[in-house]
């Protein structure tokens, strides 16, 4: 069953996806991620730990999240423990431009420099 949960961990916003990310579920995902950035999220973590399918539609959606995050000086990290799904991210070269982590705790343990006290100012890569 598809589902999305949004929660905050410090300066990072975690968007957890459950179920299948495809053409049928794309509108809900796009709406949730657009809303999250409009509500102030900058450093977005899309957690695919509960996701059991992704295809080119999902890859395009993640590209859209990256664009929206960068527009506000933010970042995107994708958490993807499933090697089947990571293969899709690799074959489409998404993993060349997006940080892909195998574990959520790893992603949250390495926040962007400007998301920690005393870090770099916003807007820098």
């Amino acid at each position, binding site marked *: 069953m598809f589902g999305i949960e949004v929660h905050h961990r410090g300066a990072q916003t975690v968007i957890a996806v459950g179920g299948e990310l495809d053409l049928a579920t794309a509108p809900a995902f796009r709406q949730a991620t657009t809303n999250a950035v409009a509500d102030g999220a900058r450093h977005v973590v899309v957690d695919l730990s509960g996701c059991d399918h992704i295809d080119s539609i999902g890859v395009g959606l993640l590209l859209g999240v990256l664009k929206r995050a960068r527009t506000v000086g933010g970042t995107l990290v994708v958490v993807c423990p499933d090697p089947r799904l990571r293969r899709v991210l690799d*074959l489409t070269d998404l993993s060349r431009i997006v940080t892909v982590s195998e574990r959520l705790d790893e992603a949250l343990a390495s926040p962007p420099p400007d998301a920690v006290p005393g870090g770099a100012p916003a807007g820098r890569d």
Partner: protein
Amino acid sequence: VGGVIELEIPARPEYLSLARLVVASAASVEPTFRDERIEDLRVIVSEATTNAIEAHTALDGDERILIRCNLDDDRIEVWIEDQGAGFSPGGLPDLPDMDDPARLDIEGGFGLPLMSVLADEAEIRSSDTGTAVKLVVYQKRST
């Protein structure tokens, strides 16, 4: 061993999951196919069926998509046929490289390359009255 399985679905996104499930389950019947090959099949069927559903979005009828699996000892051949407006696979525009910021403006363009990488054979026959995609996956990856 061998057989033919046919599935006809309405050209609507909510049936995409069913198409993946049926084809992957059919492939699982053949015990010599490894899980990684079945996963390849699941993704490429999703890509082709997604394209078929999207080809119907401009139409207002209750069109159907036909999915046919020919199961064999060492290969699975899948045909996906729609009645939507066709396209020219060779006429698609070149996309910016992933490192180019302009690529972020285009969410599409990943499906056909993914199909060509994951399928051992991929063939697209498209006309004004529909598109037929043939995808073949062998027991072992050819690359």
